[in-house]
């Protein structure tokens, strides 16, 4: 990593508690711009928790306390003048279980626009264009162009998850966070979604949580290994899998933890 690398997300001594259980301990990471960063580690080590800090959805639970700093593009997201809708507009999130909204495919894609647009009525032609472009970008247009009025919750899981990615795109986010986006999908759909991630890389900074080693190797440029709420190692993916520096990383990669 050279010195002029641009970092999109940096955290400084981030600690997080659920009630009095500490789920993140002194997390300090720098996540580089425009690449895919994998977040790996055994179940319960705090991957989801860390990811959910970046767009502050963790705060939906009442019992969360956080200390430390998170800077997104240089701006501390815990500053008082940060607006959550704006923050979440810039940082899209894909969840472990596909969670399209129980409205039509079309409305799912334009949901973000409707929510964020100051104008009352966005032109129909404008929205049609956005829908086509977003669905094309996730390779769903050909499958769904005749089903735009269908309820999104009735689609196949793979289509649902791709749709969940597509609906982020009209907002032109800087960052896309993905929490085990393939864990509810079969292997073929997993491959399709992975391919999609690779086409999106470069345009967006992507952070993906996965417990699937092979997936981390296939898609990520850099990898972060977490254990019990702490960052153990953060390097280029090839390095982590070929020459892990931390013996605990080696143990995990070789399958000695769950």
């Amino acid at each position, binding site marked *: 990593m050279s010195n002029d690398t641009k970092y999109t997300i940096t955290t400084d001594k981030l600690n997080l508690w659920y009630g009095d259980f500490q789920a993140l301990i002194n997390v300090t990471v720098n996540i580089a711009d425009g690449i895919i960063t994998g977040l790996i580690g055994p179940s319960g080590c705090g991957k989801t928790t860390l990811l959910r800090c970046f*767009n502050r*959805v963790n705060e939906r639970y009442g019992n969360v306390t956080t200390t430390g700093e998170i800077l997104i593009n240089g701006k501390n997201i815990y500053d008082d003048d940060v607006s959550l809708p*704006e923050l979440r507009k810039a940082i899209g999130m894909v*969840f472990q279980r596909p969670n399209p909204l*129980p*409205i039509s495919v079309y409305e799912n894609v334009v*949901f973000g626009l409707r*929510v964020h647009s100051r104008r009352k009525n966005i032109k129909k032609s404008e929205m049609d264009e956005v829908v086509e472009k977003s669905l094309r970008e996730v390779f769903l247009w050909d499958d769904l162009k005749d089903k735009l009025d269908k309820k999104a919750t009735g689609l196949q899981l793979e289509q649902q998850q791709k749709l969940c990615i597509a609906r982020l795109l009209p907002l032109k986010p800087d960052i896309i966070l993905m929490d085990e986006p393939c864990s509810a999908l079969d292997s073929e759909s997993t491959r399709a979604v992975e391919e999609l991630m690779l086409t999106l890389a470069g345009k967006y900074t992507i952070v993906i949580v996965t417990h699937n080693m092979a997936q981390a190797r296939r898609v990520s440029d850099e990898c972060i290994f977490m254990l019990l709420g702490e960052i153990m190692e953060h390097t280029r993916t090839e390095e982590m899998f070929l020459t892990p520096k931390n013996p605990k990383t080696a143990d995990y990669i070789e399958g000695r933890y769950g």
Partner: protein
Amino acid sequence: MGNRKQLEIITESAIEWLIRICGISAILFVFGIFFFVFREGAEFLFGGLDLWQFLTSPEWYPTSVSQKRYGVLALMAGTASVTLLSMAIAVPFGLGAAIYVSEFCGPKAKETFKIVIELLAAIPSVVWGFIGLTLMNELIITLFDAPIGLTVLNGGIILALMSVPIIVSIGEDALKAVPDSYREAAEALGSTRWQMIYRVLLPAAKNGLLAAVLLGVARAVGETMAVLMATGHAVKIPGSVLDSVRTLTATIAAELGEAPVASDHYQVLFIIGILLFTITFAVNLIADLVVKGIKEQ
């Protein structure tokens, strides 16, 4: 070992039968009640009663010596006006409270709120009628300078207070049943609480919310004692909310005791019962159809 298994099989099937009987008896009771009400009124319904006049005439003189007239239009108007007014008050309040309890309340406030709502639901209807007869009556007389406070307004407010607990608790159940992942998805896309509520939550819960409203309507249509006491007992089509009216239910309650058994008057009251039955049945049927229609989309 063998014995125990046998015993289990017997108790198992006994329980199964018991449950089946409970289910069937519910259906039997409904039909039984309908049959009984129908039988009491059938003779006059098919011989003597002018059904057209019954439904379209506002003249209700069941005890007139010279010319008895049985028109329930004014009574239907009474029921409709009181029900509509009460729903106009109770639906926004009830749904608003349901949204507040389910989405904005902390866990402690939620507990308190629910207890209060349950208390409200537990007040007997005759007590509500009493409040209408005294407190509300005087309030309306002073506020509106009206000659009498026992009016559509009075009954509507009392019925609204009685329906709100139902709408709140059923509405809250409906909102609670919406998966949290929908809320999370909407919020992660940057919607505010309110945007999330009206763009996602309300559409997702609309079946349950509709059920809540219709149960409120059914409560209002069927309520007897409170409206009997609060609406002033005047058989006429109301011109404003400050007019006194009488509802279908109040008429049955007030007159059945005095009507000689099996007389025309007695039978007409049962026919009003059938009418009420038909109205609530229609409300339920419409609700079912609407809900089905929503599901198929």
